[in-house]
């Protein structure tokens, strides 16, 4: 039983890593389920049981985290950043960003400051809470 859990965890982590890596691509449940070697029906349920949130929410937070980074580090337009991180429309981006961060992208950009530490820590610790 425990070995099976470890194996499942590791495969779910592989799918989560794929979201971290290819966040801007149109990832869907079938392709993530293939990476994790589970059925589509099983994938969302198991992912949630493993990490405490749905794959969709995880991907949204990853995209928003990347958007926060680009808002802090660049002067690119908000619309540009929206498409760059994988959102399909500025409306969805603004709504999701505000829902997760509690502020609009514009407000966030005004308040943010930039600091340089290894990128995996920035990624993990600046990821907005679900």
């Amino acid at each position, binding site marked *: 039983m425990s070995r099976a859990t470890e194996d499942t*965890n*590791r495969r779910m982590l592989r799918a989560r*890593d794929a979201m971290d890596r290819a966040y801007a691509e149109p990832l869907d449940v079938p392709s993530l389920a293939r990476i994790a070697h589970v059925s589509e029906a099983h994938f969302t349920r198991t992912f949630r049981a493993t990490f405490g949130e749905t794959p969709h929410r995880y991907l949204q937070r990853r995209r928003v985290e990347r958007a926060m980074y680009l808002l802090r580090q660049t002067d690119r337009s908000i619309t540009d950043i929206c498409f760059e991180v994988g959102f399909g429309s500025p409306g969805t981006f603004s709504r999701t960003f505000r829902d997760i961060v509690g502020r609009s992208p514009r407000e966030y950009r005004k308040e943010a400051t930039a600091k340089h530490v*290894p*990128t*995996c820590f920035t990624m993990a610790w600046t990821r907005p809470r679900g």
Partner: protein
Amino acid sequence: MDPPAGLTADRAVSDKFSGAALGSVIHMFNAITHSQIYVLDQDEALDFYVGKLGLEVKSDIDLGFMRWLTVNVPDAPDREILLEKPGGPMMSEETAQQVRELLTKGATGGHLFFSTDDCRKTYETLLAKGVEFTQEPTEQPYGIDAGLRDPFGNSIRFTQPKA
């Protein structure tokens, strides 16, 4: 011009512990010699860390109560990484199981950072060996780096520092 408020606050905290503030206090430590990560299987860990990443075995000793297995970067034997298996009697079987589950979720905090002369070349070499990458070589303010996972869930990065 004044620095942003956040930066001032951070400095105020770190200055309290900086060398200057400590004055004549003697340095008590002079190196990090061992770091530790958990692995699920030490033979599989050797296959990965030595066979794929090219590290060297420093110690592989059966102590009876545990297998003391350490590796190091070639030509850097003074800094060892202990590849430890979670289990008894150090922890209960229940706790060991929790550690194994956290490890495979990528949540034990096992991180290793290596430096390399050529990040892209190292990436290609490891990719050809079937290593599981979490991030392709990426330009960062501090250099070029890439991320990967070991077979168990530990996170590894290697950086080509900015010249």
